[in-house]
Each structure stands twice: as C-alpha cells, then as structure tokens.
C-alpha cells in the first residue's frame, strides 16, 4: 500500500477521490478509525503512545471534518487536483451572481432591522434549498465533467452563500437572546 496516510484524507477513509461520496461509508470508517486511534484507547499506556494516539486522532478528526461538509470537501478535492480555488484572493464573480447576493443581503438586513425572526427563518430555509441546487451543479462539474475551473467558481459562490447563512444564524441568535 502506498497511500500516504498523513496526507490524503480520501485514502485515510478508504474513499475514491470524488465529490459525491457515500456518507455512511465515511462515517463508518471514521468510527472504525477512531476506535483504533482515540486517546481513550491509550489512556493506560506510556506517554509516547499517548502522544502518538493524540496525533492520529487529531488527524482523523480533521479528515472527517474536511470530508463531511460538502463545501470543505470540494475545496479539499480541488486542492488535491492542483486547483487553488483562490478563496481569499480571487473574488471576481459574475455580475448576475453579485446582484443576486445583494438582493439576499438586503432581504436579511430588512428582516433583521424589523426584528422579524419568522422572516429570517424562512430566508434561511430558502437559501438552504438554493444552495442544494448549486451543490448538485458542483457535483456534476467535479465528478461528471471534470471541469475543475468551473467547479472552483461554484465553490466561491457557495462560500458567499454560506457566509450569508451564518449571518442569518447570528441575526436569529441575537433576536432570541
């Protein structure tokens, strides 16, 4: 076996390098691996083994966290394919998308200012539905068309949407407390 266990999370969990993954298989592998490396299995052993266990368990957690969430999985997959999604520097987006984003943002801002938590919750649901469609598009680009440049732009769009989702969450939380 030549997989570098330290580097490739797909290899670590025995999965193919695709965006669409079998989530149940990922979870099964995650639980199986943690059952082998978790610090609770090494609590009675010498410090050197405890350290090793902590390093591995940390790595396994990091891998699971990365692959479980679709957005971080896509970013990671693109990175493995040698594509830098340019998440922090490349912010050039299509005008249509930016316009759509502005509309969403205004709707959220209005609902927040008016203290309408019901409206915010609805926006939350609508945005989630919308992002599900965009994720389907991303899956096609990654796994069927292998058009990673297009996928990178879709990832950037999804990052915007996720940020907005968080803003809605924060607004809801602020209204509740």
């Amino acid at each position: 076996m030549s997989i570098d266990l330290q580097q490739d999370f797909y290899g670590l969990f025995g999965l193919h390098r695709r965006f669409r993954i079998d989530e149940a298989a990922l979870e099964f592998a995650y639980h199986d691996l943690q059952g082998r490396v978790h610090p609770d299995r090494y609590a009675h052993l010498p410090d050197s083994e405890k350290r090793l266990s902590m390093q591995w368990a940390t790595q396994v957690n990091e891998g699971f966290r990365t692959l479980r969430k679709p957005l971080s999985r896509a970013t990671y997959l693109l990175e493995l394919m040698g594509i830098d999604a340019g998440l922090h520097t490349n912010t050039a987006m299509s005008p249509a998308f930016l316009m759509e984003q502005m509309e969403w943002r205004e709707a959220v801002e209005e609902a927040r200012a008016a203290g309408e938590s019901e409206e915010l919750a609805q926006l939350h649901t609508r945005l989630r539905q919308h992002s599900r469609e965009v994720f389907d598009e991303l899956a096609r680009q990654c796994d069927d068309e292998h058009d990673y440049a297009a996928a990178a732009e879709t990832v950037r769009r999804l990052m915007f949407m996720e940020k907005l989702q968080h803003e809605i969450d924060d607004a809801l939380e602020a209204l509740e407390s």
Partner: protein
Amino acid sequence: MALLHIAEPGLSTEPHKHRLAVGIDLGTTNSLVATVRNGIAVCLVDEEGRAMLPSIVRYHADGRIEVGRSAMAAHATDPRNTIISVKRFMGRGVKDVAYIESMPYDFVDADGMLRLRTVQGVKSPVEVSAEILKVLAARAQASLGGELTGAVITVPAYFDDAQRQATKDAAKLAGINVLRLLNEPTAAAVAYGLDNAAEGVYAVYDLGGGTFDLSILKLSRGIFEVLATNGDAALGGDDFDHRLFCWALDQSEIDPPSSEDARRLLLKARDAKELLTACDEASIKATLGSGEKVDLVVTRDQFADMTKHLVQKTVAPMRKVLRDAGLAPEDIKGVVMVGGATRMPHVQRAVAEFFGQEPLTNLDPDKVVALGAAIQANVLAGNRKEEDDWLLLDVIPLSLGLEMMGGLTEKIVPRNSTLPIARAQEFTTYKDGQTAMAFHVVQGERELVADCRSLARFELRGIPPMAAGAARIRVTFQVDADGLLSVSAREMSSGVEASVLVKPSYGLTDDEIAGMLRDGVERASEDIDARALREQKVEADRVIEATLVALEQDSDLLSADERAAIDAAIAETREAAAGHDPRAIKRSTEALSRATNEFAARRMDKSIRSALAGHKVDEIQV
C-alpha cells in the same frame, strides 16, 4: 468490520490483572465516587451507607479539616471557614461570581483565580476541592482494598479551559492520577445508553447545583458522539435556593442579615425547595441570631412563579444547541434528565414543552454521572473487554481564539469541534524590524475580547528583524481529549524557531502546585522521597507491562537488532525499578519509552491499515 483479526489497542490481555479505577462526580452540592465491580457500576458508600458526600469543607483553627456532612453542621455557626459550593469559584475571579456580596467568605482577589481567607490561611478553590477529592479517594481505597490506578473526574460540559485546568489541578493535589476529565452529560449518556442499549439522537438536560449543561448525542453502534453542547456554567439549583432566600428576606423584612443568619436561611430555603418537589407547600422556619423568628409558608405555584426566569434561562441554550447540531426538537428520541435540580416539577414541565415529549426520569439524577464516569474509568485504566467496544467522541463547548487589533476576537478553534483537535493560523508583524509579538488567548463566542474569557497571554521573542509583513508566525492550538488547550507559536520564514507553551492565567502555576503538594505531604507526615520512589516504580511497571503486551502481539514488526535493543531496555528498567533511586528509575523508564517509539508508530500504522483493508472490502460489498 475489520477482516484481519488483530488484537486491538487497549484491550485487556491479562484478565487476572484488574486495575482499580473510579469515577468521581465532583459536584457543586454533593460529590460521589463509583466503580465497576463484577461488570456493574456501583456508587461507593461511607461507613453509614451514604453515597453522597456534601461538597462542604470546614477549616478548623487547630488544623483539622472536616469534609461532608459533619462540616455541614457548622455551616451557620462558622460560615467563614465552612466552604460550600466551591465549584462555583473554580477558575474564577471575584468579579465573575454572581451575588458574591451575599456570601459569608473573606475573599482575596488574587491575580487570576480568587482565594478565600480562612482560619488556616488563604486557600485556593483548587485546594478546597482537593480536600473533597481526598475523602472520596480514601473511601475508594478503603472499599476496594488497594491503590487506585486512576480516576475519571467529571466536569460540566460548559466548563471553560480555566475551570477544567483547575479541576485537574485539584486532583493532582489530592494525589489522584486523572485518566480523563469527562463531561457530565456525556457520562450520564454512557450510563443511560449502555444500560438501555439506546440508539438514536438523545438530549441530556443536566441542571446541577451550580451548573447547567445541555448536550445532544448520537448513539449508534457503540459510538457516543456528541453533536453539540451548550449551557451556563453559573446556573443551577443554588440559584433557585437564592431566589427563595431573597423572597424570604423580603417577606420577613430582614435586611441585611448577618453571615450566620444568611447561611441559616439559605439552607432552610433549600430544604423548602426540595420539599416542594413532592408537596404543594412548604414552610421556612428559623430563629435568627437576634432572637427574631422567621415563619413563612411558600406554595409550589409561588415558587414556580418566582423562579420562572431561571427556568427560562435554560431555554435559549436548548434552542442554540439544536441549531448547532442542525436538528429540530422532533428529531430527539429521548431527553435524559440529570442533576438534582431536574426534580423540580416546573423544570420538567418546561423541558417536556420544549421537546414535545415527557423527559426520561427513570434513572437516579444524582448518581448517573458518577456511574457513567466509573464505566469510562474502568475502560481507560486498561480493563477493557471485548464487549466494551464503545467509544466516546466529545466536543469543545466554547470557541478558542486570539485577540486581534481593535480588541476583536479571531476564532481559531470553533465550538463543538470534536476532540482532540489542532488548528494553526499564520500571522505577521505589522512594524519594520519587529522582534517580538504578543498573543492573548481567549475563549468564548463574543466578538469583543472584553466579553470573552481571558485564558493566557504570552509573547514570542527573538523574531529576526524583517520588513513589516515579512515574518510568518504560525500559532497552533491543540486541544486534547480532556478539553485542555496548549498553544505554541513559531516564526517560520527565517528558519529561526521559537515556541511557547501556555497554561491558563486563571490556573495555578506548577510552582504553586508543587508548593501545595509539599505542604500537604508535610502535614500527612509522609516522606516526599518515598512518594516519588513509589510513583516512579508504578510508572516503570506500567511501561514495562505495556511493552511486553505490545511485543507479544506485534514482535514481527521488529528486526532482530531492534528487538534486542528493546529487550535490553526492559532489563535495565527492571533492574533500576528493583533499586531505591527514583531518578535512576525515571532515566531508564524514559530510555525504554524512547526505545519503543518507532515500534509504537509501526503498530499504530498496522492498526490503521487493517481498518483501511476492512473498508475496502465493505465498499465492494455495498
């Protein structure tokens, strides 16, 4: 499952060698100790058959220290030296503690954690807690008839780093080897889940004497996975007592009461609260120091009404925890109730209303945490059997971050991350030629540093002078399975490395702990050298035994030379351990540990690869 059958790590290979381990619930009001006996978790009792030890410590002028029920008797006559609910002070400063002004203690606002001035001098909450732990450890040793391998000590899930560190320090001071700090709701879930073979998503609502936790766990195929946790580390039964006490003061127009009267009334209020669980009304009767009499009756409805804002305070965390877990109330299969305060009918009503189902109250809310901790301790100590194939995956309750310019928080480790976790982030210098950089580590969810808990400050020095923005300083946060943080910082670009490890500024320094240990040892008139020798021998035995087990299982991973080197190191450690020089034992034990480093790494790789082999086949089968 894994198709290759190999012995799993942590599995007991010598069934005759049962290690003594206990679970300790160090509670605000009461503490308990439990163990697994013949496969069943049981609470250990005192000579009078009582499991619960009131968490009360009294310092006498003659140097005696009294813990538990007998100390409680003095609560009203000697309040200054009789410390109750010390858990509320763990890892806290004077300004952090609610209604501290009505407490009868002589506080010393030390740097970091507060201190209490008693007739036996200034005491840290860590020392007071250690006295409680010592009594429980002694009870366990007497009952089990041997020295303890270690203990799992429970903490509220919502405890921050400073409070966790303080708890661990208290155990250290009490001479207890801490196998793990375990979150209280998680401990309860283990006890409940294993007992009922539960599968699905459960909520644990844990309202104790001074803390409130709410955890959502997913139980599947022996994995207890905490999805999210929330709570309030300063909300509990104590607050209900205090509210009733204030009401009683109002009604009887006493103000302000003496320390003694306040304590007397507070405990009467607690009694009344407990009575109201079963009765529709309760009376509060007391004779004050002045001879004045208090004689009041409170009804259950009145009590529910005056404390409804406290119950309401548990609702926002319920909502938040579900949002963090991405779930709705109807996704919850069952709600496990933990902590004595969940006996209050109006608390149960509020929980039932929120989740749309009656909470599970078929377990003893006082004991379930200690029992769960005992089950975990048994496994961690190395008594794991084939059927103990379950595992806990817990999370960090509060985000960890660094202070940025303008007093804003930059989150590094987000809340509800599964432990252990490591996160790194790079920073740079903002001035030309800057050679040092200060870091301020904080914990909490608020955007402003001032609203978060300050954990530690440290400085990275010796950065080679460079233009502003050229240095690359990598800060790494590592949180271990106890939920404890260590932070290191390193300048990357120049090849010059510096690294710092921090301990929370609210904790005790190692020197302070060493000093307290010395004092304690002097009082117990135990020879400190004898203790060091004993500890080193135990450690040497542990390492030798672990190595022998590993060799038995996996010696094929070693070349003949490597095997010979390890055998030689074992022989050397054995010889040293037969002698009387703790330093020689330590040296040889460390050498043995080093000699097996590479072997341990290969064993771990083998185990992971066999897991991988198992999945590949599973995938084909799907």
